[in-house]
């Protein structure tokens, strides 16, 4: 067996604020097919977390079932993780987040996991505005079960064995926009210059952040008839804007040409600098985003980039007015004040 990644690294590899290199954020060596887009997403997550200097033990990786949901094993070896039941990642994440809101929740799901079996769970976690990063590795098929068409597949496309997609596709970005997600983006796994800053911004964003990542399945969905193949996506991808993520500690240069740039201040003080390619583009305009996505789709294009961002939206804990101290850190006597207090409460209802 000659399949192990050497611990040697480049002598010029930078270290982050914690003294770690990005190699310290890697996971086990991937067992996905060679060339799988999901591996590129893993690499982007590794770089994003390293660049943000997040302590690995302050991250929880959440996933369902699928090749995409296996991927958390291939990044962040020193983080927490929960590989849940198919389509049930959102409820488990909600529970975890309720118990410990101090962790960064990075969820990795698939289009099968989120748009088929887990669609109901997906819709509700968006509504709930849970503070998490929800990533879907969108390959248009059920990779793990050998290439059945997923609900995100465009109507009319054929899968590898020749089955045609008869039904309308589900666009998870459109759903997320409709259901009020405060951060919605679409990316391509093959474009790290776009993906890494967007993952970083999604992590910095306080609230529900959704990223739909087109992630070609080299084995079951990379044939000429597919609209999720490397060739097709590379030819049809268009971006609304080039996004840069500027962490809090870096100084902001205010002299940017008017009209072309937009700086959006995130909750934690970091900045998303958006270099607009489309002059009418406005991150806060949810309706426009919906229209743009649909319009490009009608033209046969895949619109990528940050689609919508509302840094002021309230998230789950704010809406529910939960305690500042995470529940898992509250001692038993406070959580469970005892029989006397309970009877006082009960008495108040009598």
């Amino acid at each position, binding site marked *: *067996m000659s399949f192990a990644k050497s611990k*040697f690294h*480049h002598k010029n590899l930078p270290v982050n604020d914690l003294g770690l290199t990005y190699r310290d954020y890697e996971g086990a060596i991937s067992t996905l*097919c060679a*060339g799988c887009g999901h591996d590129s997403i893993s690499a982007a997550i590794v770089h994003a977390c390293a660049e943000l200097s997040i302590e690995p033990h302050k991250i929880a990786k959440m996933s369902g079932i699928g090749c995409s949901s296996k991927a958390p094993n291939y990044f962040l070896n020193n983080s927490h993780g929960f590989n849940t039941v198919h389509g049930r990642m959102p409820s488990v994440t909600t529970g975890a987040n309720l118990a410990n809101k101090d962790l960064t929740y990075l969820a990795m799901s698939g289009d099968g996991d989120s748009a088929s079996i887990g669609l109901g769970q997906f819709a509700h976690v968006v509504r709930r505005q849970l503070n998490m990063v929800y990533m879907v590795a969108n390959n248009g098929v059920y990779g793990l079960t050998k290439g059945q068409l997923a609900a995100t597949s465009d109507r009319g496309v054929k899968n590898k064995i020749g089955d045609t997609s008869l039904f309308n596709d589900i666009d998870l970005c459109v759903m997320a926009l409709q259901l009020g997600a405060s951060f919605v983006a679409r990316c391509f796994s093959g474009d790290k210059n776009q993906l890494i800053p967007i993952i970083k911004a999604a992590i910095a964003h306080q609230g529900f952040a959704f990223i739909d990542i087109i992630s*070609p399945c080299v084995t079951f969905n990379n044939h000429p008839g597919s609209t999720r193949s490397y*060739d097709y996506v590379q030819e049809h991808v268009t971006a609304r804007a080039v996004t840069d993520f500027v962490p809090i500690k870096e100084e902001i240069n205010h002299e940017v040409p008017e009209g072309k740039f937009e700086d959006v201040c995130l909750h934690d003080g970091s900045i998303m600098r958006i270099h607009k390619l489309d002059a009418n583009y406005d991150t806060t305009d949810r309706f426009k985003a919906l229209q743009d996505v649909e319009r490009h789709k009608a033209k046969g294009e895949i619109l990528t980039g940050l689609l919508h961002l509302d840094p002021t939206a309230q998230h789950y804990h704010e809406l529910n007015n939960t305690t500042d101290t995470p529940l898992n850190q509250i001692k038993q006597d406070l959580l469970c004040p005892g029989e006397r207090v309970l009877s006082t409460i009960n008495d108040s209802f009598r």
Partner: protein
Amino acid sequence: MKKTDVSTYDHFLKVVDCQQACPAHTPVPEYIRLIADKRYSDAYLLNWQSNVFPGVLGRVCDRPCEPACRRGRVEEEPVAIFRLKRVTADLKDDISARLPKAPEHKNGKTVALIGAGPASLTVARDLVPLGYEVTIFDRDFKGGGMMRSQIPAFRLPESVLDEEIDYILNMGVKTEFGTPITSLHKLLKDNYDAIFVGTGAPKGRAINIPGVKEADAHIALGIDWLSNVSFGHNDKAPKRVVVLGGGNTAMDCCRTAKRLGGTDVKVVVRSSYAAMKASPWEKKDAAAEGIDIIVNHTPKEFVMKNGKFVGVAFEQVESIYDRGGNRVLKQTGKTLFVECDLVLVAVGQDTSFPWIERDIGLDFNEWGQPELNDKTLQSSIDKVFFGGDAAFGPENIITAVAHGHKAAISIDLFCQGVNPEQRTDSDFALISQKMGMHEWSYQNITDHEVRHAVPHISWEKAVKELATEVELGFDDQLALQEAKRCLNCDVHTVFTESTCIECSACDDICPVDCINFIEDIPDNTRPAQELLKGKLHLDKATDEQDYLISDKLKTGNIMVKDEDMCLHCGLCAERCPTGAWDMQKLTLSNVEATIK
């Protein structure tokens, strides 16, 4: 950007750092793999083909391959390449039957070789199997040149030297030993078809300071003194010996003096310790044998007292480097007096051609060196060729061997009536090493493993015996462990633009961030180094290797791989869904022809 030229072997040979650095381009990784397979005889013969003296070089080579070795860039210390070379000689079977022989029918051409050092012996080895009748002249009574006369037996046992010289002489070389050549003019009249001059750099440099005449009986030139020891004319040294100079000759002098009875042996050198010319391992061994090295002192006078020699006076100096990086010695005003009975002067050697008449058409340059064609080693008399230390001044054995190969090719062409500049280059092949899923024909997993030290006899015993070899060499187990440290740099990452789908899997997996996909840069003229600055994952850590730059890919982007840090781990090829990367072994059909 300009695509890397992969239509010749140049880029690939350069990637094999050790092979490129070896003057004879020995296929190092290939023989290391053979050692790992315990195929010692095959490994020996592969060495022998390129460097002619594996047993000798495995002990005393200057090893320019090691500082170049990739392992030294990705880790701390290079692969112990020359130690492994010795293993092939120590553990091989009898290989004499596998050596080339002179053909029964000669080609009718005669060649005279002057001097029987490694350069001439290499020429003989290359020409005799082709049917040349070769005569080798030396003023000494045995072959080997300075390998025999200068390099002490405690570093290089005579039996090892004899064996490898005999392999060549027994092929059917005519020897005229004990025969100094005193006139090139005369030799030219003997109508040899070609003459090769391999007379080395046999003249030791003297030091001209006050007292040199008076103290004459107590001063010897290092190289003359060493050859007297080698040939048994001298087997004693006085108790107190001072060696002047900081090169390898100085190290051999002091260590020999210690073995011949010197109890207080000092080396005094003008430079700092770091700037000494001696190899680091020579300095270390001398220190281990209890020799004092006094640095930053320059000799001022050989001091006589009442007509008796008492010692050497020195001035302390400081090395200062001027803007051009040249060393200037500045006196500090302090002095030092070292008492001693014998001074060995080891401050350099020169070539010596009193036997070449200056009016026979052989041109010399302003430094008294023959004018030579760099590419062919041909002199201004077309049938006379030079090589080894005689050609450009003192170097080392492996350089002499490389010159020998180069000159042999020239002589062969010349004797066939072809201009030696019209050389045919080596063919090359790149062969896939893929054996199956996750399986390569070479050991591609690499991780940290420190260099293994060579065992040696105790230093107390070492300094007592002149002819006992100090180093013991690796045994098969140590050899196996050290062999595993080799990164197989001759198994190349070969990229095919037309099959790449730009999925970035290779870029993601590469442990050392070699691989980049970037927008093409519309500039064909400026150097890649400059154009790529800041555009890749990481800037170069060293400048030892080039970039591998692809043609435009489908999206218009290009692939740029930095060859500097690549581990040859094959993960890129393993991860590539389309086989756009493959790990392919470079083989050269004629390694000697690649020596340029």
